[in-house]
């Protein structure tokens, strides 16, 4: 789950990392007010959960509260990469002498957190060649103890008082990374300004599987569409796609493979829906209702019954058909546990079940094309 920049800034600041003066504003007037409080030149930064904001014109500068108001007004009516800007962060303008990059990221393959740091920070960090990037794998039981931070700044080639300050930031970033179950804690740029450093922009992504550790509520916002939220509440993975066939399968891998097979037969899926293994009749019915609500041209269910029982799936289709109706053609591939019973139930409600996935998918593509 990504956090807005202003949330990451607050968390970093609360944990002793130097951050610019300023705060989030939800209206142009509020932006002017924040600029007034700061009392000097400010930066107005669009708060959207995507990169490349600077290059897309999402960051503006203002010398007076009035200028800040105007800039905020423009931004709050714009979009970046299709995302509406609903708030801006107004902060003091920092004199930039040098831009440093520091991040702690989860490296799944290594099963460890990885520190990435560079004295070539700033907007083009993704293009910085390997030799200018320091990579340091952390031991989860050690984290960033002082010596680890010293070794990182040594490898960065930074020395003196600034090195000590970066070491402090790294140690505090580790505390944040740990406390918030972060997948990513990133400061870019960490600006050197005179004899001080300051985290001019921060990013955090936290693991929503750890939400239970926040009994008072999570310190971030959701970033899902309405349908995705509904699916999430049911414990279903759902992603909207561009095609017209509504797809349901049980398991992420097989769902992905089903999408590939659809493409193989010349069709296109309207969504990715992994209804999970071991779904009950009720859960499957609800998943189907979500699918229907997105108005696909056809529905394809690819069910390999393991823990999921084929008769439960068939019952779910029967129940939904009876209650709200299924207004589009349905193709079901159904094999595995209690397969015969499932096929029988489907037959009763006029749905043919396939046992071969290729045949089922080909049929669904054909039906969608005809619709």
């Amino acid at each position: 789950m990504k956090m807005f920049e202003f949330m990451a800034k607050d968390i970093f600041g609360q944990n002793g990392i130097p951050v610019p003066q300023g705060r989030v504003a939800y209206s142009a007037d509020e932006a002017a007010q924040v600029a007034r409080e700061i009392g000097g030149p400010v930066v107005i930064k669009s708060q959207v959960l995507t990169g490349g904001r600077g290059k897309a014109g999402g960051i503006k500068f203002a010398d007076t509260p009035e200028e800040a108001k105007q800039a905020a007004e423009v931004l709050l009516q714009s979009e970046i990469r299709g995302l509406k800007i609903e708030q801006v962060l107004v902060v003091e303008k920092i004199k930039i002498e040098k831009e440093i990059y520091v991040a702690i990221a989860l490296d799944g393959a290594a099963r460890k957190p990885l520190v990435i740091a560079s004295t070539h920070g700033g907007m083009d960090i993704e293009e910085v060649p390997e030799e200018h990037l320091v990579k340091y794998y952390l031991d989860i039981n050690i984290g960033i103890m002082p010596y680890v931070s010293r070794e990182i700044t040594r490898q960065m080639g930074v020395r003196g008082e600034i090195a000590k300050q970066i070491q402090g930031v790294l140690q505090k970033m580790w505390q944040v990374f740990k406390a918030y179950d972060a997948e990513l804690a990133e400061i870019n740029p960490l600006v050197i300004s005179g004899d001080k450093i300051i985290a001019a922009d921060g990013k955090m992504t936290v693991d929503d599987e750890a939400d239970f550790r926040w009994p008072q509520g999570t310190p971030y916002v959701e970033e899902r569409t309405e349908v995705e939220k509904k699916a999430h509440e049911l414990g279903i993975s759902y992603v909207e796609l561009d095609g017209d066939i509504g797809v349901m399968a049980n398991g992420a891998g097989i769902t992905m493979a089903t999408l590939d097979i659809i493409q193989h037969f010349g069709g296109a899926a309207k969504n990715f829906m992994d209804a999970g293994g071991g779904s009950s009749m009720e859960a499957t019915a609800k998943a189907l209702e979500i699918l229907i609500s997105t108005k696909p041209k056809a529905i394809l269910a690819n069910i390999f019954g393991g823990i999921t029982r084929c008769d439960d799936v068939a019952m779910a289709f029967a129940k939904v058909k009876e209650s709200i109706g299924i207004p589009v053609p349905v193709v079901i591939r159904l094999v595995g546990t209690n397969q015969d019973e499932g096929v029988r139930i489907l037959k009763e409600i006029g749905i043919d079940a396939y046992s071969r996935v290729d045949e089922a998918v080909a049929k669904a593509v054909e039906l969608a094309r005809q619709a």
Partner: protein
Amino acid sequence: MAVIIDENTRVIVQGATGKQGSFHLGQMVAYGSKVVGGISPGKGGQEVEGVPVFDTVAEAVEKVRPDASIIFIPSQGVKDAAFEAIDAGIKTVVIITEHVPVHDEMAIMALAKERGTIVLGPNTFGIVSPGKCKMGIMPNAVFNTPGNVGVVARSGTLSYEIVFNLSNAGVGQSTVVGLGGDRVVGLSFVDVLKMFEADPGTEAVVLVGEIGGNAEEVASQYIKEMTKPVVAFLAGKSAPPGKRMGHAGAIIERGKGTFASKAEALTAAGAKVAGLPWQVPQLIQESLGRK
């Protein structure tokens, strides 16, 4: 022959009296796995499906000498349960639970590494050496064809599909290993490929991969050195870039982890690559025939 588990493996089930745990305990017993105990705090002394229940893993170690444990515990308690198993000296731990926080997973893997424990999962369907031992949630009926093909997969139902196709074509399996679908899991493809390469009972390997991450690319480096043929099935050819596909691992980043990059790396390493499930048995039979 088989890898990791076989007919002698003594299995315990953590979370044995829960809904999932007790159901699958029964399924594993029915399969023929040597299930020697269940763990359920406060319920020691009871029985589930004729299997004795213990309060702690340490108690089970004392009384029934298990080799391996399978965990059916809600995600919040997985770190505790996995630590319990590893700390008690269990050498193979299978974690079925999904939605485990990734920081907990890192902590589990760090301890496992320190103690020399094999961890499968979290978020795995488990492991099965057909006809010998099943530790997992896969349907018994689909995984009943012993043979000489090793299968290693990231995701569950997809590997059922592949194994279903293999068995229907008369291609049996030595062991089917589910690594787990999360970003941080205990074993990598390379770890398991090495085991299959060393296993006299395995003559060819099917690798069931998907887009995202670079696990398949890394595996390719090792496949080059293998003497046994490898067929790779890859899911996600049709996926648009950058969408999160349920498996946290399936995030496409910076052009890495794409279908093309994986297929290319695997092909260059000498593996045959299938993009559709029904292609797999044929490619395996070709590989074995030619060998």
